């Protein structure tokens, strides 16, 4: 790309070293405090979307006295428009395993799991072969931390951390009440660090570059680079590693097809940004956060159809246990259909907006809470399309 307005980065996918597991070996020689300090100084925040400071998560878990602790890599990438974890696992699984192993060392865990979504089962054999190599190296290094892959089976909600634990424990993937948090009571009710695939790779970047260099990427609130999954109405869909903190208009200039009407940032559970707000929107924790999903819509698309599709998705993928999410999703979907068909007056949309606000503050987990994001941002910005 000739346009240098967006800084492409090549850290996640780039080679760190010709020697396999060299950075892991180097890091294992360091003290836990030093490692934690580097991660803290780097400002790394979780790459799954919620953006919790990684160092704090690790520190809290490290401080618990439990004999058993777990490291879990959340590879249940199910957010519509996201496919970066698949790419990372296909291309640089070693970095993921190394990141997990470093976490194991820091928190004092001997066992790691990767929860891989069922849709990615085709990668399982390759990943297991890579794991064999990891285990050989760990053995050579005298490092007692094993990793096992568990498969999901087609349930979006299992990407929610406590639902993921429930699933791994053999149950329905229903989110738990919080507190307690995973740092004290996670998988098997033991202290657990659960991080996104990309977060573990970022830890590796920090270990390699040092926090000062890592910090040079991104903005104060959003350090480092981010892998973006770009799809929709774009001539160049795919995976891009970009600096965090970029303005959306620059993103659209580069990836749009010249007729971009809206960008859905952060998947179905994220926000829809209309053209008029591109300029003022920053992609990052200070603006619109994202797990990496960027879906571009041009002016030929009906935003009603987009919202309808999202709501169908949520209605099916809600675990169903809590009222606001289970019934709220059904009402939002049925409600927009009724308005579109003229069975309900346009003012009913206001009623639904209030409902979505209630869902946002009363749902048990992030899924139900985030339905309002796309609902309100689409309905607010494309009201005519909802009615006519």
């Amino acid at each position, binding site marked *: 790309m000739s346009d240098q307005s967006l800084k492409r980065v090549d850290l996640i996918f780039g080679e760190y070293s010709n020697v396999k597991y060299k950075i892991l070996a180097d890091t294992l020689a360091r003290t836990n405090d030093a490692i934690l300090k580097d991660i803290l100084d780097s400002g790394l925040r979780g790459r799954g979307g919620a953006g919790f400071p990684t160092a704090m998560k690790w520190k809290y878990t490290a401080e618990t006295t439990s004999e058993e602790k777990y490291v879990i890599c959340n590879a249940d990438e199910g957010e519509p428009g996201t496919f970066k974890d698949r790419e990372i696992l296909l291309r640089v699984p070693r970095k993921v395993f190394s990141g997990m192993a470093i976490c194991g060392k820091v928190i004092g865990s001997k066992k790691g799991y990767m929860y891989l979504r069922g849709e990615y089962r085709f990668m399982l054999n390759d990943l297991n072969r890579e794991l064999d190599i990891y285990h050989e190296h760990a053995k050579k290094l005298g490092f007692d931390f094993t990793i096992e892959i568990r498969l999901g089976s087609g349930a979006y909600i299992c990407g929610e951390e406590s639902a993921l634990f429930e699933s791994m424990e053999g149950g329905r993937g229903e989110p738990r009440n919080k507190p307690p948090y995973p740092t004290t009571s996670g998988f098997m009710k033991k202290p657990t660090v659960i991080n996104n695939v990309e977060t573990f790779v970022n830890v590796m970047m920090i270990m390699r570059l040092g926090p000062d260099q890592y910090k040079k990427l991104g903005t104060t609130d959003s350090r480092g680079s981010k892998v973006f999954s770009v799809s929709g109405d774009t001539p160049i869909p795919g995976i891009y590693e970009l600096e965090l903190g970029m303005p959306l208009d620059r993103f659209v200039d580069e990836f749009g097809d010249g007729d971009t009407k809206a960008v859905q940032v952060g998947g179905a559970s994220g926000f829809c940004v209309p053209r008029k707000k591109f300029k003022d929107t920053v992609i990052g924790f200070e603006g619109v956060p994202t797990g990496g999903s960027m879906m571009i819509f041009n002016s030929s698309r009906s935003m009603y159809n987009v919202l309808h599709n999202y709501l169908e998705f949520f209605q*099916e993928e809600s*675990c*169903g*246990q809590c009222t606001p999410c*289970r*019934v709220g999703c*059904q009402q939002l979907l049925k409600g927009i259909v009724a308005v579109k068909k003229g069975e309900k007056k346009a003012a009913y949309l206001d009623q639904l907006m209030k409902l979505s606000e209630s869902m*946002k503050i*009363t749902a*048990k987990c992030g899924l139900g809470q985030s339905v309002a994001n796309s609902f309100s941002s689409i309905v607010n910005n494309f009201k005519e399309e909802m009615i006519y």
Partner: protein
Amino acid sequence: MANKVNLTIDGINVAVDEGKTILEAARSLNIHIPTLCYHEDLCVAGNCRVCVVEQEKVKTLPASCAMPVSEGMVIHTNSMKVRLARKHIVELLLSEHNADCTKCYKNGNCELQGLASQMLTGDHMFLDLVPDKKYTIDMFNSAIIKDDSRCIRCQRCVRTCEELQSVSALGVAHKGDKMKISTFFEHSLLEVVCTNCGQCVNRCPTGALIERNYIDQVWDAIYDPNKHVVVQTAPAVRIALGEALGMPSGKIVTGRMVAALKRLGFNAVLDTDFTADLTIIEEGHELLTRLKKALVDKDPSIALPMATSCSPGWIKFIEHTFPEFLPNLSTCKSPQQMFGALAKTYYAQKRKLDPKNIVSVSIMPCTAKKFEANRPEMRSSGYKDVDFVLTTRELGIMIKQAGLEFEALPEEKFDSFMGVSSGAAVIFGSTGGVMEAALRTAYEIVTGREVPFDGLNITPVRGTEGEVREASVLIERTVPAWNFLEGVELKCVVANGLAHAKTVMQNVRDGKANYHFIEIMACPGGCLGGGGQPIPTNPEIRAKRKEAIYAEDMGMSIRKSHENPEVAALYTEFLEKPLGHKSHELLHTHYTPRKRY
């Protein structure tokens, strides 16, 4: 002592123990936060979200049932945000719910209805989702009806079935908008491992799980001039019925209950307690006989420990879960079924009635009794021994239907015969009661002396909720006929709630425990906490009912089953002797192994 945490709720400062929830803290201040999925007996689910409150400096509204208090928390339970959110939630539940309340058995007793009327949800804020759902009703079972169209998916039933009963006949299935409470493959409750204990019915906030009621059939029988309708009342009904009729819990209403039944038009108001005493005689002799055959005759075919068989929920549980232990069950029928068999034989003969004109009704704290009465083996009189089983709740409804002012009724006495009973029979209604009653009699048979406990109160076997209680009684200075028991320490165990029953049986199976006599009641606290008892039933209410039961026992002039003169007369006039031929025909039964899944 637990650390105290300071917080503010609706402007009131309060210090509560660490680990308490916001809901508990609010209750301590008499601030009422509405709940639906919450139940004192169950683990916290936090899924209905009705109990949300506003916490300052927090964006979301935490569910007060699930959120532990923390220092400095500032909570508002009735802010504008909270009110709208709660109304939305109740409206959402109603939109998924078949709300034709006037056609619902729980009309007037429904927690969702209560919340709806409180919140004035008359304006149907949202679209009706019911037409989109393919709701079904399972009405194949003789005890419990499951109507999915009334279910609000609070999962109280699922938690009850799993946590309290370890049965898990009910589970949660599917997800999203299709999520529902379901049995295995959505089979009828009749076809799965359900024990009919009715604990789910007792906890269901709506009309989704209800007892199959036989109120109209009983009225029809009463109105039929050709029928002689006898009614028996179980021990635990008399200490709970008042609750169904507006009285506080823990009131003994035996006399009023009898008066009410007479005014309803039953031809004879008799007492299950009579056959509870009879059960003790039969079961006590059965235990002693088994001990003799095992210890003296060294008969290897004798199954020990022997387990009680009064609780039909327990019977169905063991048939499904531990069929290998069926020989260990006492062959005695439950008091209800002994009564039924005698009503259409002994009673009919004595009253010169044609048994085919007798309608035998029982009032039970139990839903499993409905299933029990319908068992094919329960027809030893040549007729269906018990025609209709009503729960305490159903009797409450009949009394209301008849327009009786229950509290104002005079206290009346049971008809005789089959109406006299002892304190030992009354305590059948509480966990440990059968054990205690049996010991009061068996000890005396074996030693010729009363049990060596102050006031005949064998407190070590009085069960407690939530635990398996083990006790032993040393047998000393026996009468000659039972001298083989000299020095034997009779080992007993008492458990209530099927989860604890499972523990006991696993211990027996795995050789970890060595008992002679096991008492199991399927329901928490025993029959006083039965599935057919007034709603709500919770730990506090059960404790009051238990107090009342033991008070009733203490107030009885006869305290031991073998001193019941009507039982003695029954043997002389009819049965001849315990475990005799007639007994075997009428009072004993057999069991059926059932599939585990």
